[in-house]
Protein backbone atom coordinates (compact mmCIF):
# COMPACT_ATOMS: atom_id res chain seq x y z
CA UNK A 1 0.00 0.00 0.00
CA UNK A 2 1.37 3.43 -0.94
CA UNK A 3 1.36 6.44 1.33
CA UNK A 4 -1.06 9.20 0.34
CA UNK A 5 -0.67 12.98 0.40
CA UNK A 6 -2.90 16.02 -0.13
CA UNK A 7 -1.64 18.55 -2.66
CA UNK A 8 -4.65 20.79 -3.18
CA UNK A 9 -7.64 22.09 -1.27
CA UNK A 10 -10.55 24.37 -2.07
CA UNK A 11 -14.01 25.17 -0.80
CA UNK A 12 -16.90 27.58 -1.20
CA UNK A 13 -18.47 29.71 1.48
CA UNK A 14 -21.26 27.82 3.24
CA UNK A 15 -24.52 29.69 2.80
CA UNK A 16 -27.46 30.24 0.47
CA UNK A 17 -26.19 30.00 -3.09
CA UNK A 18 -29.47 30.70 -4.87
CA UNK A 19 -27.87 31.56 -8.18
CA UNK A 20 -25.45 28.63 -8.31
CA UNK A 21 -26.42 25.13 -9.40
CA UNK A 22 -25.19 21.94 -7.73
CA UNK A 23 -22.76 21.28 -10.56
CA UNK A 24 -21.39 24.82 -10.57
CA UNK A 25 -21.01 24.89 -6.79
CA UNK A 26 -18.91 21.75 -7.01
CA UNK A 27 -16.92 23.22 -9.88
CA UNK A 28 -16.13 26.34 -7.85
CA UNK A 29 -14.48 24.27 -5.14
CA UNK A 30 -12.91 21.83 -7.61
CA UNK A 31 -11.19 24.54 -9.64
CA UNK A 32 -9.85 26.18 -6.46
CA UNK A 33 -8.39 22.82 -5.42
CA UNK A 34 -6.88 22.13 -8.83
CA UNK A 35 -5.29 25.60 -8.91
CA UNK A 36 -4.01 25.12 -5.37
CA UNK A 37 -2.47 21.80 -6.42
CA UNK A 38 -1.04 23.30 -9.58
CA UNK A 39 -2.13 20.33 -11.66
CA UNK A 40 -4.63 19.97 -14.47
CA UNK A 41 -5.12 16.24 -14.84
CA UNK A 42 -6.86 13.90 -12.47
CA UNK A 43 -7.72 10.26 -13.05
CA UNK A 44 -10.51 9.60 -10.58
CA UNK A 45 -13.27 11.67 -9.04
CA UNK A 46 -15.34 10.86 -5.96
CA UNK A 47 -18.34 13.11 -5.24
CA UNK A 48 -19.87 12.94 -1.78
CA UNK A 49 -23.57 13.92 -1.63
CA UNK A 50 -26.73 12.76 0.12
CA UNK A 51 -29.77 14.67 -1.13
CA UNK A 52 -29.29 15.30 -4.86
CA UNK A 53 -32.10 12.93 -5.85
CA UNK A 54 -34.48 14.56 -3.41
CA UNK A 55 -33.40 18.20 -3.72
CA UNK A 56 -32.33 18.46 -7.35
CA UNK A 57 -33.92 15.29 -8.80
CA UNK A 58 -30.40 14.55 -9.99
CA UNK A 59 -28.23 11.46 -9.68
CA UNK A 60 -25.17 10.24 -11.60
CA UNK A 61 -23.11 13.00 -9.99
CA UNK A 62 -19.73 11.50 -10.85
CA UNK A 63 -20.23 11.83 -14.57
CA UNK A 64 -22.06 15.15 -14.19
CA UNK A 65 -19.28 16.85 -12.21
CA UNK A 66 -16.50 15.47 -14.41
CA UNK A 67 -18.28 16.74 -17.51
CA UNK A 68 -18.81 20.21 -16.06
CA UNK A 69 -15.10 20.68 -15.24
CA UNK A 70 -13.95 19.56 -18.65
CA UNK A 71 -12.84 16.03 -17.92
CA UNK A 72 -15.54 13.65 -19.15
CA UNK A 73 -13.77 10.32 -19.45
CA UNK A 74 -12.20 9.99 -16.00
CA UNK A 75 -13.33 7.42 -13.48
CA UNK A 76 -16.05 9.09 -11.45
CA UNK A 77 -18.77 8.19 -9.01
CA UNK A 78 -21.10 9.53 -6.34
CA UNK A 79 -20.43 8.34 -2.82
CA UNK A 80 -23.25 8.29 -0.30
CA UNK A 81 -23.21 7.57 3.42
CA UNK A 82 -25.82 10.06 4.65
CA UNK A 83 -24.05 12.93 6.50
CA UNK A 84 -20.81 10.96 6.13
CA UNK A 85 -20.83 11.12 2.33
CA UNK A 86 -17.96 13.62 2.19
CA UNK A 87 -15.67 11.73 4.54
CA UNK A 88 -16.52 8.53 2.69
CA UNK A 89 -15.58 10.16 -0.64
CA UNK A 90 -12.18 11.01 0.86
CA UNK A 91 -11.87 7.42 2.13
CA UNK A 92 -12.61 6.00 -1.32
CA UNK A 93 -10.11 8.36 -2.93
CA UNK A 94 -7.52 7.39 -0.33
CA UNK A 95 -8.00 3.72 -1.17
CA UNK A 96 -7.68 4.42 -4.89
CA UNK A 97 -4.30 6.12 -4.46
CA UNK A 98 -3.03 3.76 -1.76
CA UNK A 99 -3.85 0.76 -3.92
CA UNK A 100 -1.55 1.95 -6.66
CA UNK A 101 -4.27 1.92 -9.30
CA UNK A 102 -4.37 5.69 -9.83
CA UNK A 103 -2.13 8.63 -8.96
CA UNK A 104 -4.18 11.84 -8.99
CA UNK A 105 -7.60 11.70 -7.39
CA UNK A 106 -10.11 14.47 -6.72
CA UNK A 107 -12.28 13.90 -3.64
CA UNK A 108 -15.10 16.31 -2.99
CA UNK A 109 -18.49 16.83 -1.46
CA UNK A 110 -21.35 19.12 -2.45
CA UNK A 111 -24.86 19.78 -1.19
CA UNK A 112 -27.57 22.30 -2.04
CA UNK A 113 -30.16 22.03 0.69
CA UNK A 114 -31.81 25.37 -0.08
CA UNK A 115 -33.33 24.08 -3.33
CA UNK A 116 -36.14 22.54 -1.23
CA UNK A 117 -38.23 23.78 1.71
CA UNK A 118 -37.42 23.12 5.36
CA UNK A 119 -40.18 20.46 5.81
CA UNK A 120 -38.85 18.75 2.69
CA UNK A 121 -35.31 18.79 4.11
CA UNK A 122 -36.68 17.46 7.41
CA UNK A 123 -38.37 14.60 5.58
CA UNK A 124 -35.34 13.87 3.39
CA UNK A 125 -32.87 13.73 6.27
CA UNK A 126 -34.77 10.77 7.73
CA UNK A 127 -33.45 8.71 4.85
CA UNK A 128 -30.50 8.27 7.19
CA UNK A 129 -32.45 5.66 9.18
CA UNK A 130 -34.86 2.88 8.19
CA UNK A 131 -37.68 4.73 6.45
CA UNK A 132 -40.33 2.08 7.15
CA UNK A 133 -39.67 1.73 10.87
CA UNK A 134 -37.91 4.81 12.15
CA UNK A 135 -39.12 7.66 9.94
CA UNK A 136 -42.63 6.21 9.99
CA UNK A 137 -42.93 7.10 13.67
CA UNK A 138 -42.82 10.79 12.77
CA UNK A 139 -39.39 11.24 14.34
CA UNK A 140 -37.11 13.74 12.66
CA UNK A 141 -33.34 13.67 12.48
CA UNK A 142 -32.99 16.36 15.15
CA UNK A 143 -35.56 14.34 17.14
CA UNK A 144 -33.32 11.27 17.08
CA UNK A 145 -30.47 13.31 18.48
CA UNK A 146 -32.84 14.78 21.08
CA UNK A 147 -33.58 11.26 22.33
CA UNK A 148 -29.84 10.89 23.05
CA UNK A 149 -29.60 14.38 24.52
CA UNK A 150 -32.40 13.84 27.05
CA UNK A 151 -31.06 10.44 28.09
CA UNK A 152 -27.53 11.84 28.42
CA UNK A 153 -28.58 14.84 30.51
CA UNK A 154 -30.76 12.68 32.79
CA UNK A 155 -28.20 9.90 33.19
CA UNK A 156 -25.21 12.11 33.94
CA UNK A 157 -27.04 15.08 35.51
CA UNK A 158 -25.87 17.54 32.89
CA UNK A 159 -27.60 20.93 32.80
CA UNK A 160 -28.82 22.49 29.52
CA UNK A 161 -26.28 25.31 29.89
CA UNK A 162 -23.48 22.73 29.90
CA UNK A 163 -24.56 21.48 26.47
CA UNK A 164 -24.00 24.92 24.96
CA UNK A 165 -20.20 24.91 25.22
CA UNK A 166 -19.92 23.24 21.82
CA UNK A 167 -21.96 25.75 19.78
CA UNK A 168 -20.36 28.65 21.65
CA UNK A 169 -16.88 27.33 20.81
CA UNK A 170 -17.87 26.74 17.18
CA UNK A 171 -19.17 30.28 16.77
CA UNK A 172 -16.18 31.82 18.46
CA UNK A 173 -13.94 30.14 15.86
CA UNK A 174 -16.22 30.78 12.90
CA UNK A 175 -16.01 34.53 13.54
CA UNK A 176 -12.54 34.37 11.96
CA UNK A 177 -13.40 32.01 9.12
CA UNK A 178 -14.20 33.67 5.78
CA UNK A 179 -16.01 30.58 4.47
CA UNK A 180 -18.19 30.05 7.55
CA UNK A 181 -21.99 30.21 7.29
CA UNK A 182 -22.44 32.00 10.62
CA UNK A 183 -19.29 34.00 11.29
CA UNK A 184 -20.31 35.56 14.61
CA UNK A 185 -19.94 34.80 18.30
CA UNK A 186 -22.82 33.68 20.48
CA UNK A 187 -23.21 33.35 24.25
CA UNK A 188 -24.49 30.50 26.39
CA UNK A 189 -27.40 32.75 27.45
CA UNK A 190 -28.39 33.42 23.84
CA UNK A 191 -28.19 29.72 23.05
CA UNK A 192 -30.38 28.75 26.02
CA UNK A 193 -32.99 31.35 25.04
CA UNK A 194 -33.27 29.99 21.50
CA UNK A 195 -36.46 28.11 20.66
CA UNK A 196 -36.86 24.37 21.21
CA UNK A 197 -36.65 22.46 17.96
CA UNK A 198 -37.11 18.96 19.40
CA UNK A 199 -37.03 19.00 23.19
CA UNK A 200 -34.54 19.19 24.80
CA UNK A 201 -32.53 20.45 21.81
CA UNK A 202 -32.55 24.23 21.30
CA UNK A 203 -32.21 25.91 17.92
CA UNK A 204 -28.69 27.13 18.66
CA UNK A 205 -27.53 23.55 19.27
CA UNK A 206 -28.49 22.61 15.70
CA UNK A 207 -26.53 23.02 12.52
CA UNK A 208 -28.35 25.11 9.96
CA UNK A 209 -29.46 24.40 6.42
CA UNK A 210 -26.99 25.57 3.79
CA UNK A 211 -25.21 24.99 0.51
CA UNK A 212 -21.52 24.34 0.04
CA UNK A 213 -18.80 22.37 -1.68
CA UNK A 214 -15.31 21.32 -0.59
CA UNK A 215 -12.65 19.49 -2.58
CA UNK A 216 -9.19 18.03 -2.01
CA UNK A 217 -6.67 16.55 -4.42
CA UNK A 218 -4.87 13.37 -3.34
CA UNK A 219 -1.79 11.74 -4.83
CA UNK A 220 1.01 9.38 -3.73
CA UNK A 221 3.05 10.94 -0.91
CA UNK A 222 6.28 10.59 -2.91
CA UNK A 223 4.85 12.72 -5.71
CA UNK A 224 3.30 15.16 -3.23
CA UNK A 225 6.72 15.81 -1.67
CA UNK A 226 8.00 17.02 -5.05
CA UNK A 227 5.01 19.30 -5.63
CA UNK A 228 4.19 20.90 -2.29
CA UNK A 229 5.73 22.10 0.90
CA UNK A 230 4.75 21.42 3.59
CA UNK A 231 3.33 18.09 2.54
CA UNK A 232 0.22 16.84 4.28
CA UNK A 233 0.03 13.07 4.59
CA UNK A 234 -3.21 11.17 5.09
CA UNK A 235 -1.78 8.75 7.62
CA UNK A 236 -5.08 7.02 8.40
CA UNK A 237 -8.43 6.61 6.68
CA UNK A 238 -10.89 4.24 8.35
CA UNK A 239 -14.61 3.61 8.49
CA UNK A 240 -17.06 1.51 10.46
CA UNK A 241 -20.80 1.14 10.92
CA UNK A 242 -23.23 0.56 13.77
CA UNK A 243 -26.79 -0.77 14.00
CA UNK A 244 -28.63 1.58 11.63
CA UNK A 245 -31.57 2.59 13.80
CA UNK A 246 -30.79 4.32 17.08
CA UNK A 247 -33.73 2.67 18.85
CA UNK A 248 -32.39 -0.83 18.16
CA UNK A 249 -29.13 -0.24 20.06
CA UNK A 250 -28.62 -1.49 23.60
CA UNK A 251 -26.57 1.57 24.57
CA UNK A 252 -27.99 4.77 23.09
CA UNK A 253 -25.05 6.82 24.35
CA UNK A 254 -22.22 4.76 22.84
CA UNK A 255 -20.99 5.93 19.46
CA UNK A 256 -19.71 2.46 18.62
CA UNK A 257 -19.01 3.18 14.93
CA UNK A 258 -16.78 6.13 15.90
CA UNK A 259 -15.05 4.01 18.52
CA UNK A 260 -14.36 1.19 16.07
CA UNK A 261 -13.12 3.48 13.34
CA UNK A 262 -10.91 5.62 15.55
CA UNK A 263 -9.18 2.66 17.17
CA UNK A 264 -8.39 1.35 13.70
CA UNK A 265 -7.17 4.83 12.74
CA UNK A 266 -4.83 5.20 15.71
CA UNK A 267 -3.37 1.79 14.81
CA UNK A 268 -3.07 2.63 11.11
CA UNK A 269 -1.38 5.98 11.79
CA UNK A 270 0.67 4.41 14.59
CA UNK A 271 -0.15 7.21 17.03
CA UNK A 272 -1.68 7.77 20.43
CA UNK A 273 -4.53 10.24 20.84
CA UNK A 274 -2.18 12.45 22.86
CA UNK A 275 -0.41 13.31 19.61
CA UNK A 276 -3.51 14.89 18.07
CA UNK A 277 -3.03 18.68 17.88
CA UNK A 278 -6.29 19.65 16.18
CA UNK A 279 -9.64 17.89 16.08
CA UNK A 280 -12.66 18.07 13.80
CA UNK A 281 -15.74 16.57 15.38
CA UNK A 282 -19.12 16.02 13.71
CA UNK A 283 -21.22 18.26 15.97
CA UNK A 284 -24.39 18.47 13.88
CA UNK A 285 -26.05 18.88 17.30
CA UNK A 286 -24.25 19.63 20.54
CA UNK A 287 -25.00 16.12 21.89
CA UNK A 288 -23.11 14.64 18.93
CA UNK A 289 -20.07 16.75 19.77
CA UNK A 290 -20.27 15.59 23.38
CA UNK A 291 -20.73 11.87 22.61
CA UNK A 292 -18.02 12.04 19.94
CA UNK A 293 -15.47 13.41 22.40
CA UNK A 294 -16.23 10.38 24.57
CA UNK A 295 -16.13 7.84 21.72
CA UNK A 296 -12.87 9.30 20.40
CA UNK A 297 -11.35 8.80 23.83
CA UNK A 298 -10.76 12.44 24.78
CA UNK A 299 -13.35 12.49 27.56
CA UNK A 300 -14.55 9.80 29.93
CA UNK A 301 -18.07 8.46 29.51
CA UNK A 302 -20.56 11.01 30.79
CA UNK A 303 -17.88 13.72 30.98
CA UNK A 304 -17.95 15.00 27.41
CA UNK A 305 -20.12 18.03 28.15
CA UNK A 306 -17.97 19.04 31.13
CA UNK A 307 -14.82 18.55 29.04
CA UNK A 308 -16.14 21.22 26.67
CA UNK A 309 -17.41 23.50 29.45
CA UNK A 310 -13.94 23.47 31.02
CA UNK A 311 -12.52 25.08 27.88
CA UNK A 312 -10.53 22.05 26.80
CA UNK A 313 -11.81 22.28 23.21
CA UNK A 314 -10.90 25.97 22.81
CA UNK A 315 -8.16 27.18 20.47
CA UNK A 316 -5.84 27.47 23.45
CA UNK A 317 -7.24 24.38 25.16
CA UNK A 318 -5.99 20.85 25.57
CA UNK A 319 -7.44 19.72 22.21
CA UNK A 320 -8.48 22.59 19.89
CA UNK A 321 -11.71 21.37 18.30
CA UNK A 322 -13.57 22.61 15.24
CA UNK A 323 -11.14 25.45 14.84
CA UNK A 324 -12.93 26.90 11.81
CA UNK A 325 -16.46 26.68 13.22
CA UNK A 326 -17.52 23.05 13.06
CA UNK A 327 -20.90 21.93 11.83
CA UNK A 328 -22.83 24.50 13.83
CA UNK A 329 -21.05 27.66 12.71
CA UNK A 330 -18.95 26.84 9.63
CA UNK A 331 -22.00 24.91 8.49
CA UNK A 332 -23.16 21.44 7.49
CA UNK A 333 -23.99 21.13 3.80
CA UNK A 334 -24.56 17.44 4.32
CA UNK A 335 -22.44 15.66 1.71
CA UNK A 336 -19.70 18.28 1.73
CA UNK A 337 -19.01 18.45 5.45
CA UNK A 338 -16.55 15.55 5.63
CA UNK A 339 -14.41 17.25 3.00
CA UNK A 340 -14.65 20.68 4.69
CA UNK A 341 -13.14 18.96 7.74
CA UNK A 342 -10.19 17.73 5.68
CA UNK A 343 -9.72 21.15 4.03
CA UNK A 344 -9.75 22.90 7.42
CA UNK A 345 -7.34 20.43 9.02
CA UNK A 346 -5.01 20.87 6.04
CA UNK A 347 -5.22 24.66 6.51
CA UNK A 348 -4.15 24.23 10.14
CA UNK A 349 -1.29 21.88 9.31
CA UNK A 350 -0.07 24.18 6.51
CA UNK A 351 -0.14 27.20 8.82
CA UNK A 352 -2.90 28.84 6.76
CA UNK A 353 -5.56 29.11 9.49
CA UNK A 354 -5.10 32.85 10.06
CA UNK A 355 -6.33 34.13 13.42
CA UNK A 356 -7.39 30.63 14.40
CA UNK A 357 -3.98 29.11 13.83
CA UNK A 358 -3.02 26.50 16.40
CA UNK A 359 0.71 26.82 16.94
CA UNK A 360 2.82 23.98 15.60
CA UNK A 361 -0.17 21.95 14.53
CA UNK A 362 1.35 18.77 13.19
CA UNK A 363 -1.29 16.05 13.51
CA UNK A 364 -5.03 16.44 12.96
CA UNK A 365 -7.98 14.06 13.29
CA UNK A 366 -11.35 14.39 11.57
CA UNK A 367 -14.47 12.46 12.56
CA UNK A 368 -17.35 12.47 10.04
CA UNK A 369 -20.56 10.62 10.78
CA UNK A 370 -23.63 9.36 8.92
CA UNK A 371 -26.94 9.08 10.74
CA UNK A 372 -26.63 9.02 14.52
CA UNK A 373 -23.19 7.37 14.26
CA UNK A 374 -24.53 4.61 12.00
CA UNK A 375 -21.46 5.19 9.84
CA UNK A 376 -18.25 6.81 11.04
CA UNK A 377 -15.27 7.85 8.96
CA UNK A 378 -12.00 8.87 10.60
CA UNK A 379 -9.04 10.56 8.95
CA UNK A 380 -5.70 11.38 10.49
CA UNK A 381 -3.59 14.00 8.71
CA UNK A 382 0.05 14.65 9.45
CA UNK A 383 2.33 17.44 8.35
CA UNK A 384 5.34 15.79 6.79
Amino acid at each position, binding site marked *: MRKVGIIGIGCTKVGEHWSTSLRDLFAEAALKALDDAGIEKIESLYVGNMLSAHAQQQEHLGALMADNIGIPGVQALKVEAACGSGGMAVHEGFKAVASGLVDFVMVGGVEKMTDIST*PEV*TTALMMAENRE*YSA*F*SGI*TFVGLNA*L*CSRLYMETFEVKPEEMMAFPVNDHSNAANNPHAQYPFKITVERAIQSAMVADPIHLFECCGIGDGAAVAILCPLEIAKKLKSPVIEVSASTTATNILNL*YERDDLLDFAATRRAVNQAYAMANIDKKEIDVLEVHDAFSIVGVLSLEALGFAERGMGARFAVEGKIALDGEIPTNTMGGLKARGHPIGATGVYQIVELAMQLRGEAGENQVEDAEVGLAQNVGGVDSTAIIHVLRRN
Partner: protein
Amino acid sequence: MSVPRYWRETPYRYMLVGGKCSDCGKIYYPIKKVCRVCGSRDFDQVKLGDRGKLVTFTVIRSPPSGYEEYTPYVVGIVELDDDVRVISQIVDCDIEDVRTGMELEAAFRRASTDGDSGIVMYGTKFRPVIS
Protein backbone atom coordinates in the same frame (compact mmCIF):
# COMPACT_ATOMS: atom_id res chain seq x y z
CA MET B 1 -45.33 6.64 0.53
CA SER B 2 -45.93 4.25 -2.35
CA VAL B 3 -48.70 1.69 -2.07
CA PRO B 4 -46.44 -1.37 -2.53
CA ARG B 5 -44.04 -0.15 0.18
CA TYR B 6 -46.85 0.57 2.61
CA TRP B 7 -48.63 -2.73 1.90
CA ARG B 8 -45.47 -4.81 2.33
CA GLU B 9 -44.81 -3.63 5.90
CA THR B 10 -48.46 -3.67 7.03
CA PRO B 11 -48.41 -6.85 9.12
CA TYR B 12 -45.25 -5.78 10.97
CA ARG B 13 -46.62 -2.29 11.71
CA TYR B 14 -50.26 -3.03 12.40
CA MET B 15 -49.63 -5.92 14.78
CA LEU B 16 -46.07 -5.20 15.92
CA VAL B 17 -44.72 -8.41 14.44
CA GLY B 18 -41.00 -8.91 14.89
CA GLY B 19 -38.60 -11.80 14.45
CA LYS B 20 -37.17 -14.20 17.01
CA CYS B 21 -33.91 -15.96 16.25
CA SER B 22 -34.66 -19.70 16.33
CA ASP B 23 -31.23 -20.48 17.71
CA CYS B 24 -30.43 -17.90 20.38
CA GLY B 25 -33.87 -16.37 20.99
CA LYS B 26 -32.96 -12.73 20.40
CA ILE B 27 -35.95 -10.68 19.28
CA TYR B 28 -35.68 -8.06 16.54
CA TYR B 29 -37.99 -5.33 15.25
CA PRO B 30 -37.78 -5.17 12.29
CA ILE B 31 -37.00 -8.79 11.48
CA LYS B 32 -33.50 -9.32 10.10
CA LYS B 33 -32.19 -11.88 7.66
CA VAL B 34 -29.23 -12.91 9.81
CA CYS B 35 -28.94 -12.81 13.60
CA ARG B 36 -26.10 -10.48 14.55
CA VAL B 37 -25.51 -12.35 17.79
CA CYS B 38 -25.27 -15.99 16.65
CA GLY B 39 -25.21 -15.77 12.86
CA SER B 40 -28.34 -17.87 12.38
CA ARG B 41 -30.51 -17.34 9.29
CA ASP B 42 -33.49 -18.98 10.97
CA PHE B 43 -36.20 -16.69 12.34
CA ASP B 44 -39.74 -17.15 13.63
CA GLN B 45 -42.21 -14.33 13.31
CA VAL B 46 -43.42 -13.28 16.74
CA LYS B 47 -46.02 -10.83 17.86
CA LEU B 48 -44.32 -8.44 20.26
CA GLY B 49 -45.79 -7.70 23.66
CA ASP B 50 -47.98 -4.60 23.94
CA ARG B 51 -46.69 -3.21 27.23
CA GLY B 52 -43.48 -1.33 27.94
CA LYS B 53 -41.62 1.55 29.55
CA LEU B 54 -40.55 4.86 28.06
CA VAL B 55 -36.75 4.95 27.78
CA THR B 56 -36.40 8.49 26.43
CA PHE B 57 -38.50 10.90 24.40
CA THR B 58 -38.55 14.18 22.52
CA VAL B 59 -41.20 16.68 21.40
CA ILE B 60 -41.28 17.24 17.66
CA ARG B 61 -42.05 20.88 16.86
CA SER B 62 -40.81 20.98 13.27
CA PRO B 63 -42.48 18.02 11.56
CA PRO B 64 -41.73 16.11 8.38
CA SER B 65 -44.30 16.24 5.56
CA GLY B 66 -47.52 14.43 6.44
CA TYR B 67 -47.29 14.87 10.23
CA GLU B 68 -48.24 18.53 10.48
CA GLU B 69 -51.67 17.86 12.01
CA TYR B 70 -50.14 16.22 15.09
CA THR B 71 -47.55 18.90 15.77
CA PRO B 72 -46.29 19.27 18.43
CA TYR B 73 -46.16 15.58 19.29
CA VAL B 74 -44.08 13.28 21.44
CA VAL B 75 -41.94 10.49 20.00
CA GLY B 76 -40.09 8.11 22.27
CA ILE B 77 -38.18 4.86 22.48
CA VAL B 78 -40.27 2.24 24.25
CA GLU B 79 -38.71 -0.84 25.80
CA LEU B 80 -41.26 -3.61 25.60
CA ASP B 81 -41.59 -6.22 28.33
CA ASP B 82 -40.03 -8.84 26.06
CA ASP B 83 -36.80 -6.89 25.91
CA VAL B 84 -37.09 -5.42 22.43
CA ARG B 85 -37.40 -1.71 21.67
CA VAL B 86 -39.58 0.23 19.30
CA ILE B 87 -39.79 3.93 18.38
CA SER B 88 -43.26 5.40 18.54
CA GLN B 89 -45.43 8.44 19.08
CA ILE B 90 -46.69 8.75 22.65
CA VAL B 91 -50.35 9.72 22.60
CA ASP B 92 -53.48 10.18 24.75
CA CYS B 93 -51.76 12.44 27.26
CA ASP B 94 -50.57 16.01 27.63
CA ILE B 95 -47.01 16.66 26.50
CA GLU B 96 -46.21 18.07 29.95
CA ASP B 97 -47.18 14.75 31.60
CA VAL B 98 -44.75 12.58 29.63
CA ARG B 99 -41.98 11.20 31.84
CA THR B 100 -39.05 8.88 31.26
CA GLY B 101 -39.92 5.51 32.75
CA MET B 102 -43.70 5.84 32.41
CA GLU B 103 -45.63 2.65 31.68
CA LEU B 104 -47.17 2.44 28.22
CA GLU B 105 -49.37 0.16 26.15
CA ALA B 106 -49.77 -0.26 22.40
CA ALA B 107 -52.71 1.27 20.50
CA PHE B 108 -53.69 1.01 16.84
CA ARG B 109 -53.81 4.50 15.42
CA ARG B 110 -53.80 6.54 12.22
CA ALA B 111 -50.21 7.55 11.48
CA SER B 112 -50.35 9.82 8.46
CA THR B 113 -52.17 10.57 5.22
CA ASP B 114 -50.67 10.85 1.79
CA GLY B 115 -52.09 14.18 0.68
CA ASP B 116 -55.83 14.64 -0.06
CA SER B 117 -56.38 11.61 -2.20
CA GLY B 118 -53.61 9.21 -1.21
CA ILE B 119 -53.66 6.28 1.17
CA VAL B 120 -54.40 6.66 4.86
CA MET B 121 -51.61 5.06 6.83
CA TYR B 122 -52.03 3.29 10.15
CA GLY B 123 -49.63 1.96 12.71
CA THR B 124 -49.00 1.32 16.36
CA LYS B 125 -48.60 4.16 18.83
CA PHE B 126 -48.17 3.97 22.60
CA ARG B 127 -50.27 5.55 25.31
CA PRO B 128 -50.14 5.60 29.11
CA VAL B 129 -51.50 2.38 30.57
CA ILE B 130 -55.19 2.64 31.44
CA SER B 131 -55.28 0.88 34.79
